[in-house]
């Protein structure tokens, strides 16, 4: 496998980077870097980390580290995760307030512990930290529950001071969305599977309305809705399929049940990714109130109703 890290790859311009990924020869991984500098979305790091875990450390080759980008890869924990030497000694600083290094999460308890530990690391407003915790929880649990990957979920996050944005990337090398969703549905392509997975109420665990006792098929819809309301990017890539929610331009953002009705780009021609990658940006300047998000999501479910029968109300005491 080959992957080239350019000088810039964020969600807005990530397409060329993903198109350049070469998944052939899965027993080795060759990573080349822009020789001058690199500044990339955590999704790129999570992707490389997840790929590297499928290859013996001795079969991973990374271009000799040069320039400032070398520090970045070391400090984000790439070499540590892959158990390889970077060939140089770099003074590591405490990550508080800036980034969450690459983390491999394989169990439910590990994820719960990670969420508790990571929130103080980002030093953001408590409300915003909780939204970030929510995103990591739902995405992480999706991987642990559906991906069936022995390597679990690989994730990292970084705070960007200039744009006041937190960017999160999570990757797995598991079954992929198409295989998972097709346990109960009939998606012909990876993109069709992504389309289904983003709809509220569609899960691979059942075709019955309302889901199962453990799954409702709402997690990805909630995450996409958070990005949508905050006018942020959200990317999901699985198999050959790729969907990118583009930053909404209008002041009044409308949530849609159908992800293809949102402002987006998509492709079903990307190099094959065995598993799923998700990237999201959270601009802290425009993070909407959590309660506003829940109101908007409730409106979507209401709009999808086929019945006018009123709901029985819960008793809050």
């Amino acid at each position, binding site marked *: 496998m080959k992957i080239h890290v350019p000088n810039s790859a964020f969600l807005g311009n990530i397409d060329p980077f993903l198109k350049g990924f070469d998944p052939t020869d899965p027993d080795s991984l060759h990573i080349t870097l822009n020789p001058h500098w690199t500044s990339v979305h955590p999704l790129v790091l999570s992707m490389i980390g997840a790929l590297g875990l499928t290859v013996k450390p001795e079969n991973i080759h990374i271009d000799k580290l040069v320039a400032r980008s070398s520090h970045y890869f070391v400090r984000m924990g790439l070499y540590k995760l892959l158990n390889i030497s970077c060939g140089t000694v770099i003074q590591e600083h405490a990550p508080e307030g800036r980034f969450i290094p690459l983390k491999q999460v394989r169990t439910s308890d590990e994820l719960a512990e990670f969420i508790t530990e990571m929130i103080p690391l980002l030093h953001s407003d408590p409300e915003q930290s909780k939204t970030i915790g929510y995103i990591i929880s*739902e995405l992480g649990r999706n991987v642990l529950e559906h991906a069936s990957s022995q390597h679990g979920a690989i994730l990292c996050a970084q705070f960007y001071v200039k744009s006041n944005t937190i960017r999160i990337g999570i990757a797995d090398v598991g079954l992929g969305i198409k295989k998972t969703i097709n346990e109960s549905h009939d998606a012909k392509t990876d993109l069709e599977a992504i389309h289904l997975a983003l709809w509220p109420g569609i899960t691979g665990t059942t075709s019955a309305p309302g889901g199962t006792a453990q799954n409702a098929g709402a997690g990805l819809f909630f995450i996409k809705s958070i990005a949508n309301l905050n006018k942020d990017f959200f990317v999901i890539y699985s198999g050959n399929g790729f969907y990118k929610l583009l930053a909404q331009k209008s002041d009044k953002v409308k949530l849609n049940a159908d992800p293809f009705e949102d402002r987006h780009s998509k492709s079903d021609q990307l190099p094959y990714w065995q598993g799923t990658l998700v990237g999201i940006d959270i601009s802290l300047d425009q993070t909407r109130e959590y309660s506003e998000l829940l109101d908007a999501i409730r409106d979507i479910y209401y709009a999808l109703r086929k019945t006018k029968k009123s709901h029985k109300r819960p008793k809050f005491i």
Partner: protein
Amino acid sequence: MKEINIYERIGEKDFAENKDIGKRIRIEEIMPELEKNNKVVLNFDKIDRASQSFIHSLISDPIRQYGDNVLDIMLFKSCNDKVKEMIKIVLGYLQDAIDKKDG
């Protein structure tokens, strides 16, 4: 009547997100009481927010098995507005699903 303190069950955290714990609470504590037609109080005191997955794992099976009448004996205590709203969302789609099934 059985009262279940969610904050204590999830390890004294204010974010209820671990759906595996939700499942355990449902199977070991909620369903046995409902089977006996006993009242169950889910106490969300000190919980700041709950994920959709967590709430779903707690209450979807009771609704599926007993219909919305279970809401007469399954009560929600000390919920803040965010937790209330999430419970309403989950109950909403679950009740719609029952209506669809019934048809």
